C-alpha cells in the first residue's frame, strides 16, 4: 500500500517536474479568502462554470449524431430522440442545461450587483461578465436555431426581419445572417459554426479570464453598511481583512460551491428525466403555415415587448434600447467604482433590480400565453355558449353564425373562449350602442380591421342584432344620451324646422 502511494507520488512528480502547473494550481485553490465570503450567496458563479462544462460535454455528445444540414437536421434530431439509445436524455440535459444556465447566470449577475462586487478593483471582472451574459444568450439563441424545427425556421425569419430594420446596412446584414437569399442550408451552417466554434471559443477564453481575475483580485468581501470602497485604501484593507479572517478557499469555502453545483446538476438531470427534451416541433417546412412560432423561454419577454411597442417606436426601440442597456451595464463599474457596497445603503440599485425583475417577469408571463395573438382556429373550435343562444330570435341566431363564420372569435372571446387580441364581447351591448357597434364593425379602428367589404347588409344586420343581445351580468343596454336629447329638442316648437333631407 505504501509502495503504491510512493509510486503515485513519483508519477505526479515526474509530470510536475515537466509541467509545473500542480504547485500554482494548489496554491490558487488554497488561497485565503475572508471568512464571511464562505457563503451560500457566493455559489452561483461556480455553478455556472459547472453547467458550462456540462453543456460542453453534452454538446459534443450530441454532435456525434446531429447532422448540421437543412435537409437532415430535423430528421437527425428525431433519430436522436427515438433511435439512439439515451439520445433523448442527452438532448434533454443539453436543453435544460441551457435554461438553467441562463437562469443561474442572471442570478449570479443580480447577486454581484447587489453585493457591489463590480466596484474597484473588480471593474473588468464585471465588464467581462456582461460579455459572458451576452454570449450565454447568444448560445441560447443559436442553440434554438440548431433545433431546426418550425419555431427555429420562423425564429430566423423574425431575426432577419429585425436585422433588416437596421438603417442603411440592414439588407447586407440580412444576407450575412442568412448566408443566402432565403433561410436555408447556408443559414443553418452559419448558426452551427457560431454555436459550436465561435461563441464557445470566446466564451471559454472569457470565462478563464473571469476566473483568473477572481483568484488574482480575491473574491468580493462581504459588504458591510458603511464600509466604503476607496481606490487608495481598498487593496490594503482587503489584504488585512484576509489576513485577519482568512480561510483557505479549498476546502473551507469550496464545499458549499461543490454542494450547490451538485444540486444544480441533479436538478438538470431530474428536469431532463421528467420533462424530456425540447421539441423538435414541426418540420422546418415553410409551406406548412399552420403554425404559431414562439421563441424559447429566455426570449419570450422580447417577443412580448415587440407585440406591445407602437409601430412608430419599434425600430428605434429595437436598436437604441440594447445599445443603451448594454452600454449602461458596461459603464456601471467605471462610473460608480467606489463607495457603498451594501444593498441597504443603495436604494436606487435595489429599486432598479426590483423594477427590471418585475418587468421581465411580467413580459415573460405575457409571452407564455400571448394575448396579442389571434387564435387562428377559435372560429371553428369554440362554440357560442348555449346561454347566448337561448330564447333568441332567428335573426339573432343567424348573427351568431355570422359571428363565428367571419372569424370574429379569433380575436374576441365570448364565455371565456376565443382570442384575446380584442376585448371580450360578453357585455358589449352594455358598452356600445347599436350605431357604435355598426360603425366599429364596418369601419374598424383601434386595433380592429374594417369588415365593410367582408359583410353584406344582411350579415351586418344579423351580426349586430346578435351582438346587441350580449349585455353581460347587468343586462342594461348602452344608450346614446345625446341622441335622446336631439330627439326631444327636435320635437319642441322653438327649434327651427329641420332642412329637408337631401
Amino acid at each position, binding site marked *: 500500500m505504501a509502495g503504491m502511494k510512493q509510486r503515485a507520488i513519483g508519477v505526479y512528480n515526474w509530470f510536475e517536474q515537466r509541467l509545473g502547473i500542480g504547485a500554482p494550481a494548489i496554491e490558487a485553490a488554497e488561497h485565503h479568502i475572508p471568512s464571511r465570503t464562505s457563503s451560500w450567496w457566493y455559489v452561483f458563479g461556480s455553478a455556472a462554470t459547472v453547467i458550462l462544462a456540462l453543456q460542453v460535454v453534452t454538446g459534443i455528445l450530441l454532435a456525434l449524431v446531429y447532422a448540421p444540414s437543412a435537409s437532415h437536421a430535423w430528421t437527425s434530431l428525431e433519430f436522436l430522440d427515438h433511435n439512439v439509445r439515451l439520445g433523448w436524455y442527452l438532448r434533454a440535459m443539453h436543453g435544460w442545461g441551457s435554461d438553467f444556465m441562463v437562469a443561474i447566470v442572471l442570478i449570479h449577475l443580480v447577486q454581484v450587483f447587489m453585493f457591489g462586487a463590480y466596484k474597484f478593483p473588480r471593474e473588468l471582472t464585471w465588464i467581462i461578465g456582461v460579455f459572458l451574459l451576452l454570449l450565454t444568450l447568444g448560445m441560447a439563441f443559436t442553440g434554438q436555431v440548431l433545433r431546426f424545427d418550425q419555431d427555429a425556421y420562423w425564429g430566423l425569419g*423574425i431575426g432577419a426581419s429585425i436585422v433588416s430594420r437596421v438603417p442603411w446596412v440592414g439588407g447586407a446584414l440580412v444576407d450575412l445572417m442568412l448566408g443566402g437569399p*432565403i433561410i*436555408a442550408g447556408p443559414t443553418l451552417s452559419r448558426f452551427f459554426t457560431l454555436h459550436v466554434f465561435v461563441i464557445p471559443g470566446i466564451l471559454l477564453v472569457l470565462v478563464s479570464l473571469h476566473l483568473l481575475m477572481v483568484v488574482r483580485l480575491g473574491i468580493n468581501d462581504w459588504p458591510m453598511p458603511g464600509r466604503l470602497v476607496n481606490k487608495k485604501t481598498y487593496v490594503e484593507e482587503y489584504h488585512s481583512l484576509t489576513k485577519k479572517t482568512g480561510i483557505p478557499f479549498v476546502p473551507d469555502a469550496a464545499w458549499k460551491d461543490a454542494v450547490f453545483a451538485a444540486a444544480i446538476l441533479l436538478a438538470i438531470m431530474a428536469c431532463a428525466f421528467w420533462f424530456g427534451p425540447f421539441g423538435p416541433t414541426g418540420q422546418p417546412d415553410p409551406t406548412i403555415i399552420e403554425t404559431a412560432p414562439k421563441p424559447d423561454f429566455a426570449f419570450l419577454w422580447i417577443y412580448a415587448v415587440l407585440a406591445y411597442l407602437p409601430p412608430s417606436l419599434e425600430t428605434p426601440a429595437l436598436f437604441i434600447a440594447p445599445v443603451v442597456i448594454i452600454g449602461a451595464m458596461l459603464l456601471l463599474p467605471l462610473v460608480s467604482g467606489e463607495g457603498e457596497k451594501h444593498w441597504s445603503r443603495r436604494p436606487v440599485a435595489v429599486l432598479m433590480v426590483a423594477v427590471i425583475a418585475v418587468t421581465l417577469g411580467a413580459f415573460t408571463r405575457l409571452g407564455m400565453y400571448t394575448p396579442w395573438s389571434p387564435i387562428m382556429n377559435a372560429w371553428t373550435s369554440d362554440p357560442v355558449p348555449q346561454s347566448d343562444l337561448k330564447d333568441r330570435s332567428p335573426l339573432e341566431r343567424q348573427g351568431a353564425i355570422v359571428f363565428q363564420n367571419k*372569424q370574429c372569435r379569433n380575436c374576441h372571446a365570448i364565455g371565456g373562449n376565443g382570442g384575446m387580441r380584442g376585448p371580450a364581447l360578453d357585455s358589449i351591448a352594455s358598452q356600445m350602442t347599436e350605431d357604435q357597434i355598426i360603425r366599429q364593425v364596418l369601419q374598424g379602428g383601434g*386595433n380592429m380591421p374594417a369588415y365593410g367589404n367582408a359583410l353584406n347588409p344582411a350579415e351586418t344586420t344579423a351580426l349586430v342584432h346578435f351582438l346587441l343581445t350580449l349585455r353581460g351580468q347587468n343586462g342594461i343596454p348602452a344608450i346614446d344620451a345625446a341622441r335622446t336629447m336631439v330627439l326631444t329638442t327636435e320635437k319642441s316648437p322653438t327649434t327651427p324646422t329641420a332642412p329637408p333631407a337631401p
Partner: protein
Amino acid sequence: MNPSEPLSPADQVAESAANAESAGHSRRVFLFKLSLLLNGAVGAVLAVPIVGYLLGPALRKNSAENSWIDLGPLSNFPEGETRLVNFRNPITTAWDGQTGDIPCWVRRIAGNNFQVFAINCAHLGCPVRWFAQSRLFLCPCHGGAYYEDGARASGPPERGLFEYQHKITSGNLMISAGKMPTLAAAHNCAGPRLTQIQTNSAPAETDQHKTPAQTQSGDRSWPA
C-alpha cells in the same frame, strides 16, 4: 576611467565585445520590428480573401437572386379567390431540403388582374394566413392583419404585405422571386397599394401611407 589614458589590451577587447554586443542587439531589434512589419503586411494580404469570403453573401447583387418563376396555368386560380401556392426558390443548395420550398398567396381579382403576396408578415416575417370569410390575412405571431388587397388593416405592421412582381406568359402566371422579403429587401417587391376601405373615420386617409402617428390616434378610438 579617464578617457585620455590609453586602454589596456584587456579593456580594449572587453569594450569592442560590448560594442559588438550592443550593435548586435540593436540590429536584432531592428530585424524584429521588420519581421512584425512583414507579418502585418502578410496579415493584411491574408485578410483580403478572408473578409471577401465572409462578406460574400452580402456582396451578391440582388438582381441575380430574383428570377421569373412559373406558378402554373391561370386556370389554377379561380377569379375572386386567394390561394396558397408553393414554389421552389430559384437559388437553393442541394442540402436545403424543405426550406427551399416557399409559399405565397395568389389573389386573382378578375381576368388577368392578379396580386401575389409574400407569406411573410411585414412586421417580423411570420407566415400570414388567409381567411376567405372575413377577407383578411392574419398573422399568428403578433396579430398583424391585412385586407384582401394586402393593405395593412391593423396590428403592429408598419405597411401592407410584400408583393411579388408578376406577369402572365403564355397562359401561365409568373412571379419574380428568389429572396426572402424583409423591410430592407422590400424594393424587390411592388410598392404599397391603395386600400379599398377607409380604415378610419378620417376621409383623407385613403391610402396606407398613413404615418404611424395617425395610426396611433386611431388606436385610441377603441372604447374601453
